């Protein structure tokens, strides 16, 4: 299951996450909705918040595991 491959990468990048979910949007194992709430996002513009998620998932993005990625980021306060 590819969801199980993405989750540890996000947990490693956002160990403090108050919310962290990986949803397989289509059931096909390559279209994902990722939601993360972390203090790391606070004070950052949206693009930098998404950049942190993209960096955490750089390997599965590069090797084609992720065909489509939707990202929702939030602070924790």
């Amino acid at each position: 299951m590819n969801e199980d491959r993405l989750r540890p990468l996000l947990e490693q990048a956002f160990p403090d996450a108050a919310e962290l979910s990986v949803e397989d949007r289509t059931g096909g194992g390559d279209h994902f909705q990722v939601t993360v709430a972390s203090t790391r996002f606070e004070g950052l513009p949206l693009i930098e918040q998404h950049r942190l998620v993209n960096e955490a998932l750089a390997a599965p993005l590069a090797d084609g595991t992720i065909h489509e990625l939707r990202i929702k980021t939030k602070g924790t306060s």
Partner: protein
Amino acid sequence: MNELRDQIQNVIATEDVAFFMKGTPYLVMCGNSMRALEALRAAGAPVTAVDVLPDPRIRQELSAISGWPTIPQVFVRGELIGGADIVEELAASGELERTLEEKLGPDYRATGAERVVAVASPV
């Protein structure tokens, strides 16, 4: 010299709103490109679209330039604004229109309709 990279950089640098997408505004080939296009249209952005599908190297070069791994990508006056999720969120909050006004001036809606440009050089 990398001609394709130069062409992509040129589009980013010279177009008010450069929109790298899968397909064209007339035939959108991906849900995320459609979401971003709809958000840009709702904000009245003068979009210049580039289809990344004709040549896989377009996407490789673009991501190398921008440091952004996914398509679509939206640039306003040379600055990466983000992908579909960001553009959609910014459009919903009104921030996209504010950014366009700030960078392109208050009359940005009158500056032009959607255009399509190609970057892939014929092989």
